[in-house]
């Protein structure tokens, strides 16, 4: 698929010959591997293929006598360019050979300096420009050369046709300029006369009787010509790639991704200033890291993954850890949660827990864990985390009965408390769940809702909770589908939260002046309880989004102000 450039010559004896061909390939730069075997193997092919093969005998068919190959690496575009007189890539050789014969022999351009584009799907397409260089020793005092740009994509070549031919012309002008200079020097002899000392006198030499074969490097009087042509070819190839740029637009990262990124930035700053305590484990958003990790670990590049992680300056188990992320537990977490529902054995209780959780009330999970196996409770907590957007979730794992009130998910390990009767300090809205884990096989032996609702009938069920329970009951869903469905709904409600936030910034539509009914209309929700959720979920919006909205609103206000003043005038 790569393009290549070639310089060809019509030899008086041998006909069309390839002098130099510059081809490109992808290059993966390797900072660690100093002894790059792969690259060496690649290079060695060129050394092998470069048989002198009698070309030494025919100078005209040679560009450089010392058998030099030139290679250039462009790190910014991951490309490697290599120039040689013959390539080990057979298909390319065939195409260049074909282009060489055609451009020098068969194809006829309309006039000098006009390129011809020719080709077919089989042999690739070629833009060729034929030119001649003056050479005192050549038959007819000039030699015929051609430059070719080869490429497999027809339309790619056509779209760049004008541009490439302009570049080629510049290369040709330079060569011709140098050849002219040599010709001038060789074709005339400076004579020392006394007639005029300021203006030298020349005598033109008759051309030699028998034309001799000469290398192009002699003709242009540049022993390092191969470097120059290589450099110019690389220049043509590189500029042809960068000539047309496409501007593609993706959406910005989702709110969850952004909040995660923002936290990471804060983390980085904190990390620089103070050493972080290990007691509090902040959990971080699932989607981004999860997918990236998944992406790497499911692919064959697991080793990159580990390297990548080690490169992080953070403490691994703090930031970016896989703990509490649903997708890292997957089916296990889902099954665990289903088990929990069975043990809870009361749909109303489940609704109560979920509802309070998604509208931002604190959830305290007391658990017994005789095996000291955190995996279990983390998997369980990851399901809860999945239900809330990343920015809304703040989790601590603690053994301290006086829990932080900033966290809305508290994992309280009761085993480490000597007396089980110590009550956790919690506010009135907190929901407390107690889980007793089977000491043998990580199954939930008992699950109980401690803070029972006052009246069972008063248990509120929002649309989102309904959806969650429905998804949990659907046995056909695997963990991936479950996650995708929850994610989809989260996006939906986050968008509503965005709208709610926007309304809050606008005086005319400020949430204070709208009735609940009106708000529900705007937000397109039917259940008044969803409003609570949306209000809370504003917390899940990223700082950058909020700033952007504020900025836009400010600009809008200014504009309106200006309009008003201009109207008044």
């Amino acid at each position: 698929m790569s393009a290549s450039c070639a310089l060809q010559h019509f030899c008086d004896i041998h006909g069309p010959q390839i002098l130099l061909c510059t081809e490109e390939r992808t290059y993966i730069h390797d900072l660690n591997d100093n002894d790059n075997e792969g690259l060496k193997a690649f290079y060695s092919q060129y050394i092998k293929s470069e048989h002198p093969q009698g070309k030494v005998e025919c100078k005209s068919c040679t560009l450089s006598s010392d058998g030099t190959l030139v290679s250039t690496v462009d790190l910014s575009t991951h490309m490697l360019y290599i120039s040689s007189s013959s390539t080990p890539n057979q298909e390319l050789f065939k195409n260049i050979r074909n282009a060489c014969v055609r451009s020098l022999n068969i194809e006829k351009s309309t006039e000098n300096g006009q390129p011809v584009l020719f080709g077919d799907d089989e042999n690739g397409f070629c833009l060729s420009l034929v030119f001649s260089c003056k050479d005192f020793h050549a038959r007819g005092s000039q030699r015929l050369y051609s430059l070719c740009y080869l490429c497999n994509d027809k339309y790619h070549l056509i779209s760049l046709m004008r541009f490439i031919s302009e570049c080629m012309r510049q290369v040709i002008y330079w060569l011709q300029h140098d050849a002219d200079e040599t010709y001038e020097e060789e074709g005339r002899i400076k004579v020392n006369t006394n007639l005029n000392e300021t203006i030298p006198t020349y005598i033109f030499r008759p051309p030699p009787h028998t034309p001799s074969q000469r290398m192009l490097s002699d003709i242009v009087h540049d022993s390092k010509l191969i470097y120059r042509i290589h450099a110019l070819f690389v220049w043509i190839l590189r500029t042809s790639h960068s000539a047309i740029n496409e501007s593609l637009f993706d959406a910005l990262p989702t709110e969850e991704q952004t909040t995660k990124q923002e936290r990471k930035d804060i983390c980085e700053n904190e990390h620089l200033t103070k050493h972080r305590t290990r007691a509090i484990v902040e959990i971080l958003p699932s989607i981004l890291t999860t997918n990236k990790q998944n992406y790497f670990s499911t692919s064959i590049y697991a080793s990159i993954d580990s390297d990548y992680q080690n490169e992080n300056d953070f403490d691994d188990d703090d930031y970016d850890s896989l703990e509490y992320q649903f997708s890292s537990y997957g089916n296990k977490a889902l099954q665990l949660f289903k088990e929990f529902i069975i043990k809870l054995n009361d749909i109303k209780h489940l609704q109560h827990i979920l509802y309070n959780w998604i509208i931002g009330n604190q959830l305290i999970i007391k658990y017994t864990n005789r095996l000291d196996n955190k995996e279990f409770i983390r998997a369980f907590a990851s399901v809860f985390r999945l239900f809330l957007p990343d920015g809304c979730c703040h989790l601590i794992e603690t053994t301290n009965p006086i829990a932080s009130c900033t966290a809305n998910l508290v994992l309280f390990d009761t085993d480490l408390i000597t007396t089980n009767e110590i009550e956790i300090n919690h506010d009135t809205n907190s929901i407390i769940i107690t889980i007793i884990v089977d000491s043998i096989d990580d199954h939930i032996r008992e699950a109980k809702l401690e803070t029972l609702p006052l009246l069972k009938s008063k248990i509120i069920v929002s649309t989102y909770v309904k959806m969650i329970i429905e998804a949990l009951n659907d046995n056909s869903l695997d963990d991936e589908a479950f996650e995708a469905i929850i994610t989809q709904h989260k996006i939906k409600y986050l968008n509503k939260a965005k709208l709610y936030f926007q309304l809050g910034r606008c005086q005319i539509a400020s949430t204070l002046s709208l009735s609940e009914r009106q708000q529900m209309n705007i937000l397109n929700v039917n259940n008044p309880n969803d409003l609570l959720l949306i209000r809370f979920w504003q917390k899940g919006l990223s700082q950058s989004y909020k700033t952007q909205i504020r900025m836009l609103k400010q600009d809008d206000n200014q504009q309106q102000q200006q309009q008003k003043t201009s109207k008044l005038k």
Partner: protein
Amino acid sequence: MSSFLNRVFGKNLQLSSKKNTPTTNTSSSSSSSLLPLVPLDLPQWIPPDLNRDHIRLLVFSDSDDVGLELIFDSKTLRIISSSDNENLTNKQSIAINTRTSLSQVPGSNRTTKPPMGPSSSSVNRPRPAITRFTHRGKIYELMKASNDIRNYADYIFGTMPLVFKGTGMKIHTSKSPLQIMMSRVFVIKLPDRPDTVVNTSITSEPETVTINPFSPFGSSPSNRSSNSNVSVASSTISSIDLLGEDLTNQRFGRLYRRWLKCANRSMKKNQKQPGRRFRRCIGVAFIITFQQNELSKYKHFEEFFCTHAPLIENHFHKIMTAAEVNINERNAIAAALLDKLFSFKDDLYTLYTRPRLVSPAWYILTQEHLTMSKRRALAQQLCSIIDLFTTPKYGDFLNCVLSAILSYQLSWLSTVSPSLVKTKQQVLFKAKADYVNSLQSFLQYSPLWGQLIDLFSAYGSPLYICRTVLVGSDSSLLIRLLYLLSFFIRPSYLIYKIPNTILSDTNDEQNRTYKKNRLYMKELIDNSTQIQDIEPYSPVHSIHWDDNDDDDDDNEQNLEDDIDILSNDTSPNHDSSSNHDNHITIYNESQNFYQLTYTTSDDIESQSVDEHDISQLLDTLILHIEQMIIAGDQEKNQLSEKPDKKTSLTLQSPIKSVIPSTPIKTLMSLSLFEPSNLGHESIEINNDYHLDLALSLISSVTSSYSSDFILQAIETTNINDIRHSIISQHTYDISENGGSFLNGEQIDTSITILINLDDISVNLYSSKHNDIARRQECTTLIKPLIKHAHLAQQFLPADFALLNMEDSLQEIYFLALAILKYMKANNRTLCSHESVSSFGDSSSIASHTSGDTDDQRSMGTNNTVTELPTQTLINSMLSNDSSHTIQIDHNSELVQNILRKFQLQRSDYMFLENILRVLEREQKQMIG
């Protein structure tokens, strides 16, 4: 205040029903929408100039037995007007003479005639001989061939006709006269038959061209739908699970699509033609000439030509087909070609000069230097247009329009899939994909090519393409809707970075000096280093090198071939040429021996760690792709038989060394040569339709249909004409000889969304259902989108509405992802007792529903179906569904479950179907 709000909400509540009388608010907004549409400072449309008379067509035939002949030259052929016609009706017998007159053009018999310069014998005659002939009641006048024919023949065929054996394309340009020429040479697929066999009914009629009775060896119509090349490519890819993309990890989505296209294309190698006794080539060329003083016009056209080559070639292809079909019938060919030439001229003229929607909404919004106030003004425009089309008069019209567009024009999908990279460049709500440019160089796709895919929404496999046509009698409404839709059609845009290519120190052509660059180059060379420790490569596969004797022989033979060429021997050697055919195919098979082995090794990957996130992923992608290429090659290798002994022929340089000497090679590493460092700045050019397909293929309001434009508005009252041209275009698109997308990829389905503003309807036309239109139903998924615009009109700044519309588009995207996962999860359980048809294979559009109230259905029964009669019967019996190869039954349990689980309506599912298909293909998640 509260009364105002109540009014607002009163309206808002009944948005869906649209029965409410317009409030003062809406009426004012709708009137404001009728203000001048483009208050932004945008360039106005300046029509370019193209003289259709300066397009010339030449057709040559070159065969082994007859030699080169001129078949057609538009310069010397003309139709005589009907008034002259009457005088000449008696002279019909002259028609027989055309053959001789054609074969006597200068240069046609090049073996016997000595080469002549442009000033040939015809100068002596003041009046060129004129021949008249009649075909189908029309009289044609043929003048003596012009004397430049010889040169053109050389350009088209090269100086040695018949040396070249395949199908080729060439472009020549010239400065005096200013002209550009595109030519094609192709081998006739039809067997050579005497003229008598050719039935006169096979003429240039485009409808009959689709049935080609003369290509029994060609691919049969049944083969076409199952494109084997594509399946090979996709199976290779799916086995690797290219990017392992997950839910939100859509970063390479669009790029991946581009890569997939590249892969398909590169694996598509031309099949070897079956052996023929006689080879006959046709060379067709069109030449566009400009006056010598029209240099700027010429440059403009040349640039246009370079970017629009795929479209122009498509039109050119029609001429080629006409030439091929009629090649054996002398009288018909002139008439047919003249006819095709006229339509070609018109097509080219239309493509070049039709007024464009100079600045599509999406284009303006993605400009990096757009000020906030401008953006808001634009958002207000869009909102007011939405408001205008949601007044009660229009009902659900806008919903249907957007449903249709967003369901089939899928370029918006990748613009709402979240990026993972924190990009430097942000345009309000979008992140510019930085990785594209760095990937462009190794993927080698043309950005124009990517644009065409986006614009025609050609993501599917098998391929479907989509166009949108607005019709109506009120141009002000048309332009508004067009403008709104241009917000939802989201291709990429191009930025040309033309560096200053001049290498000399001055621009002075006479006294060029190269001091600066010479110094720069010297510095580079001095700093170059030798790459050490490279051992000559010893091939592991020695298969190629064990037949040294043969090599010698063959190389000598090849040397002779070269000498043949040198000595201008015009009598071709049949044996050697057939040999060549063999070799070419063998090369293709055996190239894998030269693929490097190191790229497959995993250790490189694991060690290549970069600090930057993006380059790391880039590397990974590169490796993925390389591996795919190699895997593909290996697969090919396993299939290929043991290489022929003669394989190595001509692979080496034909000059054979007598004594193989030890190579003394040094490999030098040179730094990048960047002349731009010497102070030349590159110029950025963008925003011009003739350079950017995305700006070019959305036409403004015009009066006729053109198949080149993916979005066009036609001001007309005669809808039937438009409908007819749409249907015939569909027929052409999927015909055997007809439309192919880009590099010969066959179009499986061609879809046109016809939006009629007069009777407020949205109909979908598909080549699958021929003439039957499907009425687009409104969907619940689009409703929030429209609602946001209303909110903006009421109390949010308009640019908030833009943000929110993007969010609701993204919701659709995530919904589709969730449904995909759901289907995947469910299929696993379902497939044990119920074979659910594969989801991804179907390319057909959403199938017909019970709610079809279209009056066009009666046309379906008597349409001209070129397939088997039984197929027609089934088609008409089973309504439209039968034409789908595989489809998910809309009543199936799975679909019903989806509708229930995701609280969707049927129309919603149909809306999502296409999106799901594309996403599914991208994600390579096997369903079924």
